[in-house]
Structure formats: C-alpha cells, structure tokens
C-alpha cells in the first residue's frame, strides 16, 4: 500500500473539523489524522490523534514537525464571539491563530498542501455589490465587520504564505452560511428565534449551504482542488420571507435603527450572536457564484438552498448540535 496523506485538522471539535475527520476515518488515501483543538471531540474518531493545543501557541510548530503531516486543513475560524469569550477573543483566535499556524507551517518542508476555511462574509454587502459575487470580486471598498474582517485578514496571511512557499498548494474555501440538522451557526440561531426580526421594506435573497455539502466540499478539495479561492454554496436562492414561511415562523419587520438597538440588546443578553453585518444582511443579502468549484474540482451541492432549509426544519436535533 502506498503512503497515504497525513493531515492535520485545526478546530477538530467544531462542526466542519469534526465531520471531516469522521469522513476521513475510512478513507484509505488518508493515513493519519492529527486533530488540534482546545476541547476533545465529542465523539470518538478512528485514526485520529488528538492534540489538545491552542494554535496560537508556538508549540504548534513542533506538532506539525513531529507528526510528519503533509496537508494542513485550517477550520479553526469561528464566528461566535459569545462562545469564545467575546469579540476580542474571537479575533485573537481567528487572526492570530492563523498567523501562528502559517508561521509554523512555513518552516515544515513536508507540508505541501494547505486548506483554509474562509467565509463569503469577506465580500461585504451593500447597494453597489454585485447580485452574484465571484471569487475575483474586489472587496477593497467593502465595509467589513467582525467575522468577515477576520476572514479577510486571515486570507491575507494565507496569500502571503502562498507567496513565500510557492511549492505549497494553497486552497481557500469561502463558505456560504451553513445550515442543517446538526450544525449550529449564526444563521441557524437566527432562524431558530421564536419571531424572526427582519428589516421593513427589505426582503434579502438567502443562499445557504447544507452541512453535508460543506463537508463534502472540504473532502473533495483535500484530494483534488487546484490552488485558488473557491466559493462553496448550495444552488438557488429563496427570499428571506419565504424561508420564514417554510419554517412556520413569523417575521418581525423592524425599522433599521430599532433593529440596530435590538441587535445590541440580544448580543448583550447573549442569547444570540447578532453582529452588525447581520443587519446589513437583512437589507442586502449575499449571493455568490459557485461555478469555479464545479469546474475546477467537481463540487456540486446536493441540496438547494430551499432543500437545505427544509432539512433543517424537518430533521433538526438540538441536543446533537455542534458549533461551526
């Protein structure tokens, strides 16, 4: 048997890392999985070598070296300030974590492939943004907040890394908001509210990716994506009003200033992460193009946005939820 890939997954206890490790359990092309996170994964995973570590710790360099990994899958980028102990902690984790991880990986010659989870939040939203955003869209003038800003900065480090280590294939997957029966995201929190706040006079288009499709995209990209940036999303869009109706809920249209106030109250109470870009989202929405992922490594989502929402409604099991 030929030598399979030795992969390191950061954020192995969060949704994508966990499911990806689970998926590679029986993959013969994967020889070893090294999982890094602060907490141990909630379910046992075969082949997994769990290393309890913070990627911001320079110790990560030794882990990379001693485990002889050739592929680094960086999923440890979080959009939940409330679960990380606040926004500044979240930024530390997302931006400094990426910086430290890449600094370590740069010295390890055996690493030939780096995959990073990013988000379509890097595009920003506004009246001048295209209706369907492609990967090469220029976001220099976009006003980014929180998660989108973190992802954008982390991507800059990844691009710098790619410039310094030209022998490494670097792949960035910009994920559309995940939804599904077991993943917990800002979007699933939002759509789980008893009444769903919306903005008066606006009905944004919603485009989501089903959790299984998101994992599938990472698995495909691990084996075959040429270096580059790819949007990962489900097909089709629905208006927010329709999504609310599908879920059997009621929308609560709010005037923009009221929504801003309500968002900060909710944030403070800690029931739901309602960052400022969520407000922009209620007005403009964000839809991305997915052709590149299909053409370059054959990823086509099995679920449309509508089907993903229906699945979220029908099969949701709150107790098994894993945060993204």
């Amino acid at each position, binding site marked *: 048997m030929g030598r399979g890939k030795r992969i390191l997954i950061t954020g192995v206890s969060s949704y994508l890392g966990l499911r990806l490790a689970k998926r590679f359990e029986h993959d013969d092309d994967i020889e070893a999985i090294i999982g890094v996170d602060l907490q141990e994964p909630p379910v046992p995973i075969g082949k997994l070598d769990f290393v309890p570590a913070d990627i911001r710790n320079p110790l990560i360099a030794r882990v990379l070296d001693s485990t002889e990994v050739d592929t680094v899958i960086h999923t440890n980028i979080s959009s939940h300030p409330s679960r990380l102990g606040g926004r500044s902690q979240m930024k530390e984790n997302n931006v400094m974590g990426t910086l430290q991880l890449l600094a370590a990986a740069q010295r390890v010659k055996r690493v030939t492939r780096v995959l990073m989870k990013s988000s379509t939040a890097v595009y920003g939203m*506004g*009246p*001048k*943004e*295209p*209706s*369907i*955003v*492609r990967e090469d*869209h220029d976001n220099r003038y976009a006003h980014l907040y929180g998660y989108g800003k973190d992802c954008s900065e982390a991507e800059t480090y990844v691009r710098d890394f790619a410039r310094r280590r030209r022998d490494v294939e670097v792949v960035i997957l910009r994920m559309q908001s995940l939804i599904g029966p077991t993943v917990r995201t800002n979007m699933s929190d939002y759509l789980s509210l008893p009444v769903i706040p919306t*903005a*008066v*006079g*606006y*009905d944004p*288009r919603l*485009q989501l990716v089903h959790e299984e499709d998101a994992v599938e995209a990472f698995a495909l990209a691990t084996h075959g994506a040429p270096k580059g940036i790819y949007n990962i999303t489900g*097909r*089709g*869009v*629905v*208006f927010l*009003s*329709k999504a609310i*109706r*599908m879920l059997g809920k009621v929308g609560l249209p709010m005037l923009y200033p009221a929504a801003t106030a309500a968002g900060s109250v909710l944030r403070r109470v800690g029931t739901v992460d309602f960052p400022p870009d969520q407000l922009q989202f209620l007005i*403009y929405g964000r*839809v991305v*193009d997915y052709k590149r992922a299909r053409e370059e490594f054959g990823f086509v989502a099995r679920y*449309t946005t509508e089907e993903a929402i229906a699945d979220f409604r029908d099969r949701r099991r709150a107790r098994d939820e894993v945060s993204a």
Partner: protein
Amino acid sequence: MRNPANDNVIRLDARREPQRCGATTTSGRPCRNHALEGERYCHVHRRQRHNVPAIASGSPIGDEEQHGELVDGDADASVLDRLSAFMSRRLKGDYPIDEFGYDEELSRAILLPLLRPLYEHYFRVRTLGVSRIPSEGPALLVGNHSGTIPIDAVMMQYAVAAEHPAERVVRSMGADLVWAAPFISHLARKTGSAVACDEDAYALLERDQLVAVFPEGFKGVGKGWSERYRLQRFGRGGFIEVALRARVPIVPVAIVGAEEAFPMMGNAKALASLLRLPYFPITPTFPLLGPLGLLPLPSRWVIEFGEPIPMDGYPDNAADDKMFVLDLTDSIRDRIQQMVYKGLKYRGSAFL
C-alpha cells in the same frame, strides 16, 4: 478598425395610421388595440389565437429548477380554480425565483398587466422595431435615459414583454440608489433588475438574458428641461467593454416622451445633498402638489429599437483598446441621438 455603427443608415417607418387588431372582443365589438408589427392581432388576441401561455414561455434561468408554472393550456380548469391555485401558491411562497431574485410569475401575471393602462392609454406608446431584438440569446439594449424618475426603463420593459414575439423579459441594470431604497429595491429584484456593475452584466448575459443599460445614468434622468432629448456623456464606455468581451450584439434604443412626463424645471441642490440624492427635481407639479405631483404628465411616447450592432468579429483584445472603446461609445451615442431626433419628428405633438 471598421466601425459598424457608422455605415448603417437609420430607417424609420413613415408616420402612418397604426393597424388595428383584427379580433373581436368578448363584448362583440372589434378590438381597438393596435396590431403588433407584422401581425394581424394585438398582444392580447395574438396570445389567444396562438395559445401562447401567459406565463413563463422562456426557460428558467441558471440551474434553478422550476417548481410551478402558471399554465393556461388547461382549458377545463375554471378561471376561479386557477386563481385560487395561484393565490395559494403565492401565499405559501411556492414559486420559483432565479438567483437575481426575478419572480417571473409575479411579473407577468400581476405587475406587467398593471402597467398596461399606463402604456396603452396614458402614454399611448408606439413601439417600433421591437422584432429587431433577437428572439433568443443574449443582447445588450442601450437606451437614452430621461424623465427625472426612471419610468422610461419600466415602459421599455413593458414594450418588450408585451410586443416582442418572444415576449422577452428585459433585465435592467439599476443604480445603487435603487438598491438602498426600501420596497423599491425589493420590487426591482422581483421584476428582474440587477445591480449596475460589470459582474452582474456578465452574469446575466452568460445566462442568455436581455440586459438593458442606460449609460447616461443620473446625468440623463436628472438633466434640466432645456437639455431635453440631448444625450449626456455615455458613462465611461463600460457597457461597450462588456458587450465586446461577452461578444453580444448591442441594440440601440431611443425613448421619446419621458422628458415631457416629468419636465424638470429646476434642481434643489441643497435639498438633494441633505437627502443624499443625486438631484432633487422641481417639476411644474412637484413639489407644488405634494405626492400628487409625482404623477407623470400624459405625454405621448415613441420607443424605437434599432438594428442590432454585432460585437463579434473584433480582435480578442479590442476591449482593452481604450481609444477604440471610446470611439465606439461615441458612435453608438450619436446613433441613439439621431434615433431620438427622428422619433421626436415622428411623434409630432408632445401631448395630443
């Protein structure tokens, strides 16, 4: 480089009494609508004769699956049944939209019919050369923009949807002001508009859509009465670059009548900057009569679609040759200007 825009003489039909529709209405009287160009019937009766479905004769856009279609081929279903099915589908939200948010069912079944009185009886629009628009495949409509509020784009969309043999939908490119405005932005999405940027233009043309641009932008709609029917600067040639790269034909469009519908007598600049608007119009009725002043005056309109100008046949790097692009932009602007002058002559009196 040869420039096709110059060596084409613009033909315009001589003014003639328009042909009436040959059908008889349900009340037994002869139909008073104008017949479509080259056809015996008006757009209402043509549909009945040829049994053209009222909705969704075109293909769904992109990879979207179409969930429900409003079919009127089912002769047995009573009008009431169909209406209740339509209503329940609308209420459940069980209707398809494309990725841009275009809701074909709503547009064709509700919104376009609402525009008919405005188009036929109020503005009495005469549409010429609509069959010059290709029946399928992508094309870029380039028109003059006027009339303070962009009602000319709406009338053009109605003209193509109602009078073109393939009843094509026009996808207009809307400025950011539209997309920031509550209610209006949503309505624009549902009726098929997209954001005025290169990305959206390419994306729509790739999906074989008919895209409309008004390169004058706010300079066109916000110009004063003394400048009426004088075309302003045609953007920066962006639309030509898009057409060249996408290799789609340009259809020049001249719209006459919008200037008199909202004659802009003055511009309250201080108020405009306070409200963050590109201009604040003062017309004979607005703001004098308040919201009532937003009603357009009953001007007579002419919309002419010119012969398509092919954009293939140029070298691959033609779009990068800025000089060539600007020349071509100017010649298309001149051409539309000439069409506007002829349209004015053809129309005669502005209101009667």
